[in-house]
């Protein structure tokens, strides 16, 4: 698989956080896949990269769980794009994920501080 040169300076996403980030991104508005990837990278100050290709399987998974729905619509460039929207269930799921993520983060920090 071809890799980008700048890749090594960036951090790969922690396992399992991609779903959470996608859901968080979609709280703003409906977006297509590319915009979601862009948004995550930009907001992380280009520290995090989304492996772009793995975005779509993740979106498919989120749809299957009913947390996200999708609809085709015109993009600003005039082409058709699939727009993803957060469902109420997705919003609840996001809340749950953030809570558990915070707990894990706090735990890790505690360990790091004591070590």
């Amino acid at each position: 698989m071809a890799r980008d040169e700048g890749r090594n300076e960036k951090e790969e996403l922690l396992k399992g956080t991609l779903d959470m980030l996608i859901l968080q991104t979609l709280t703003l508005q409906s977006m297509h896949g590319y915009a979601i990837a862009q948004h995550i990278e930009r907001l992380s100050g280009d520290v995090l990269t989304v492996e772009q290709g793995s975005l779509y399987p993740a979106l498919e998974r989120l749809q299957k769980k009913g947390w996200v729905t999708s609809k085709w619509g015109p993009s600003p460039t005039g082409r058709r794009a699939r727009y993803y929207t957060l469902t109420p269930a997705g919003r609840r799921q996001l809340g749950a994920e953030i809570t558990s993520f915070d707990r894990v983060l706090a735990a890790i920090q505690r360990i790091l501080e004591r070590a």
Partner: protein
Amino acid sequence: MSLLDGLRHRLRVFVQQRSYDREIDEELRFHLSLEAMQQQHAGRGILSPQDARDRARRRFGNPTYHKEETRHMSGLDFVDMARQDVRFALRTLRRTPGFTAVAILTLALGIGANTAIFSAVDAMLLRQLPYREPDRLMLVSLTVAARHGEPAHDNDWSYLKANAFRDAQRDYTDLALSSGESVTLRLGQATREHAEVVDEHYLPTLGIHPFLGRNFLSDENLPNGKRSVLVSYAFWQGRLNADPTVLGRTLDIEGAPYTVIGVMPTGFRGLTGQGDFWMTIGARRPYMFEPNEAWDHEFTMVARLATGISARRARSDAALLGTRVNYAFPSDGTPGWGATARPLDGARVDPIVRRSLLVLLGAVGFVLLVACANLANLFLVRASTRQREIAVRLAIGASRRRLVRQLLTESVVLSTLGAVASVGVAWWGAHLLSTLSPERALGPHRLAGLGAVNFSTIRLDWRGLAFAGTVAVMTGLLFGLVPALQATRPSLTDALKEGSAEPPVRGGLFRRLTTRNCLVVLELALALVLLAGSGVMIRSFAKLTGVDPGFDARRVLTLRMNSPAHGNATDSLPALYQSLLASLRALPGVESVALGDCPPLAGGCNSTVIWLGGRAKEITGKEPQIGVHWVTPDWFKVMRVPLFAGRVFTDADGRGARKALLVNATAARRLWPNESPIGKIVGIGMGGFDTAYVVGVVGDVRFHTIDSVPAFDAYVSYYQAPRPSAIVYLRTVADPTTLARPARSLIGDLVPAAPVYDVRTLASRVDDASAQAQFSSVLLALFAASALVLAAVGVYGVVAFGVKQRTREIGIRVALGAEQSEVLRLIVRQGVRLALTGVGLGLLAAFAATRALGALLFDVAPSDPLTFGIVAALLGLAALTASWIPARRAARLDPSTALRD
């Protein structure tokens, strides 16, 4: 609703597979093009478009890989695989056309028969009654306690008792009365039609609204009130040409004009299931309002439960109220009467019919199971021939799950094909069942006025098809699973490693043979249960047809007729009947002719109380019940009912003469033990026979049902107590049916206004009495025969396969000098072991299973030892024959060829 969104998504992917697949492509392309634009933008125009696209591609990763991942997530690859599997399965099946044809045929018959019987069960037991909130409808009946050898039974209501009940009850919002009758309609020529005599509560209780017009008003149900009629949709369409101005038109029914006030909705035929007219009790039976008609029980009562009242509560209330109502009518305040209420849905089909349907459904399911066991065995044999293919695929890394899935797809595809082919069988079967006339199939056990759901409503519809589809998939999994698991056992890779053309003899094969043996034993056991069940049913049926009904039904034609006499006009009836009988007797081919009012074996005739010594002032309830039958003097001659003492009627027993009665032998023996009844004075509660003399004793005739013992019966003469309705009995010299036309036209000429209907032989009436038993036993026998054949084929298959596997061993044995008979014994022993195990298990199961038949049997124990012995022997013999054929082949084996191969 996350679940719903998710399901919707999955459904969309599944339904629009192709377009969804294209959309994934489009989405990825869109992403790549935006990324390329981004790269070009970042490169400030230095990058060529091609470079930008390449960079975008690199950043994205392998699009094919990601697409596959996405497809995998969406489940599209699963659909692809399934499609591949199906295509592969079809190819494989096409390669073995003989096997495929046999399998599909077996399945088509099995699934088709199941679907047909299911359609019957669905129409008669499962489908909701076509009324509003049918589960709140109750059938309320009067009940009569057991006495004088007559069992406890439900009874209809008289109008006054029903009204008393209505006034006192608090459990129902609505109570309806109805009674079926046949009426003469003159629309062109006179015809007999089915009608229901109802009150104004009938439609509201059932929750039915007329399609046109209105329901009866309460003043239309007053005695001799306005004559109004509601007609069925079918009648309006067919006979009234869907006349839009039908409201207000009059119809001539029973010689009186009835104004059409409405048309019923499509398909509504009333509680009897055959009604074309609805008229009020007040118009049709005004006499029911008279105080002294409180014990003329004619009406079915259906009531709608009020909210919050349970069926159980209604039942206990009815019992309480029923007793009170009966005490309120002292003229017949007979103890032991009460009332009961039960859900209409449960009461709609006679328990005997219900039970036989369920037994049939179980039996036909058994047949399908036997067929499944056979197919599973066929698949096992096939799998053993495909071992190398499967082993190779396992060896090159196919997962076992994948292979099992593929083999299962094959069996499900096969069973689906079978299901498609079964639609024809099912349609034909359902059609066959529906053509059984309802009266015939439901037999004399039918509840009065409750034929609403019957055989005529059976048809193959989407419910039946859905059932067939479900059965097909289950069947496919059932007979496919064991072979699929067996064939892909990991130990099978040994077959490849050893590089041997023959499968290993120990280990795998031994275990597989055991599986196959188990399947055959199961088949044999199931077949035995079916054989035993159908055996006892057939014996019961034989006993039923062997019962002497008390008359000779051969060469007798019966015609029903209604003379147009009303009220006092009955005075002229004796003369009319006498001349009618004289004319009929003069017809060529007629031996003798008579009239009677109630056909034998019809499930019930008029009955009343009998007072020894003449009519008492009051009914105490201790009086015996006696059947009353109207006949003309020659009836006993026509029916060949023997005269035991005294004399039969003569023409002299007329209006002016003293009242004469004949009694049957049972009544004579039990009412006057050890003395002659001739000359005794009695009174009966019908026809004005308060004081009558017994003039003769005749043989017992089974009027009720073929399987009930004769009770007390009395005969009165038409000439002494005229009745307008009669059945003409013609004993003929040759074939009675040839007289149907001349007799019919003769009656038509003589009594032009009288419709003649229900023309058929007496023998057919006798047949009808056992139609239900015949229907069940014929079908059961058919199922059992199929199971027997399938089981024999199964035994043959297993033994033949065993011979094939042991060819080399047998060759060596023969080469070493084994006698033919030894080889024969060796092979047959396998079949015998299977047969013994199967029959043994089957006998145990049959003892338990045939108990369900108990209520359907007449004079036969459910586990009749003779029947069990015969069917066990039959099955054993079939198994022995099936193993004999391959055994003989083995015994004739030429050792040199056997060893060379």
